[in-house]
């Protein structure tokens, strides 16, 4: 409780605010792709690249689940954690920091794998996937200041 009281006077961590904004953007990018995957939109609007080829490839799904749905859920979790992490009582929370870091590490690894598939296996690019991958890298970079928080607490 003493820690919570002290947190009330701590300014909100800027990196978590950045993560929340980026995750919100990524959420809508993934949501658009998911709406397309479940047939709620017309042909995918793709200014650059060949989204149709990527989205109709076997790699657009993991089993029955569209990759975009995984993105929607992933971004929502990161958004929720980041918003929680800027609240006065959680600003110094190392647990939230650890979850944000490990979540974004998983996200950036998965995005890296999907980007590899686009480049070398499918040999086509989907602009939304690229945008999502860039957002995920930025989120990961924004989680780096969390390392001292949870690493310091662990030691």
């Amino acid at each position, binding site marked *: 409780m003493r820690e919570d009281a002290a947190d009330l006077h701590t300014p909100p961590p800027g990196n978590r605010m950045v993560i929340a*904004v980026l995750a*919100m953007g990524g959420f*809508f990018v993934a949501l658009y792709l998911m*709406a397309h995957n479940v*047939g*709620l939109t*017309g*042909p995918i609007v793709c200014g650059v690249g060949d989204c149709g080829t990527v989205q109709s490839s076997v790699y657009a799904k993991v089993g029955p689940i569209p990759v975009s749905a995984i993105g929607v859920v992933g971004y929502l979790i990161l958004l929720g954690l980041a918003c929680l992490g800027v609240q006065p009582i959680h600003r110094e929370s190392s647990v939230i920091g650890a979850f944000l870091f490990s979540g974004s590490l998983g996200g950036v690894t998965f995005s890296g794998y999907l980007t590899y598939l686009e480049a070398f296996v499918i040999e086509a690019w989907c602009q939304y996937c690229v945008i999502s991958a860039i957002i995920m890298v930025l989120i990961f970079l924004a989680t780096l200041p969390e390392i001292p928080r949870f690493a310091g607490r662990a030691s």
Partner: protein
Amino acid sequence: MTRFYLILGTITVLGVGAISWVVGGNVLGTAVSDPIEVEGLDDMQVLAELAQGVSSGDTAAAVTIIEFGDYQCPGCGGFALSVKPQLDLMFVQTGRAQFVFYDFPLIAIHAHAFLAARAARCAGDEGQYWEYHQQLFRNQSSWSGRQSAVGAFLGYGEALGFDQDTFEGCLKSDKYADVVTANMRLGAELGISGTPTVLIEAQGQLRPVIGVDFQSIEEAIESVLEDVGAARD
């Protein structure tokens, strides 16, 4: 913190707006996608007037190749993409026959077939019925499994350079629902139960073709042309 929530709120509003706009464009809305009640279809004369095929080629040709087809049927897709081009080359473009397509959407198994037939007719208003007809068949696997095909149909129109407002207005209405319904009824009256079904018409007589491969149809047409020639002699 206020600025943070303002930024989040702005992204949310923009995101929700964009997604709603994209999804809303795909909503069926007022688009009629099932057969409608048409008065007088029991009267064969009325039915013959209402049921309208779309033709290509010389209307004065001695022989008419008639197809009853469904835009969502894979067999019709195969026919449109491999057999019809050969028929066009061999008979239609040489003036020996005309080709007429009648809509026969199998609505019990193909949810988007009726709307596709109407969409093709709307494309006819833009002067590109046959281009759209082929476009629908070429992309059949892409739109037939969707929950809604409206967006896809609008997209194909956009790709062909249609006036989007006019085309969307036509698609999201009941225009041509009566003609497509009448065509379905005509097909049923002729005993058609599956698609594609090909008939050869000459001198007012209809002859069904067994098989929808090019060779079967070619043989049927050549035989009819011989009969027509013999009758003239």
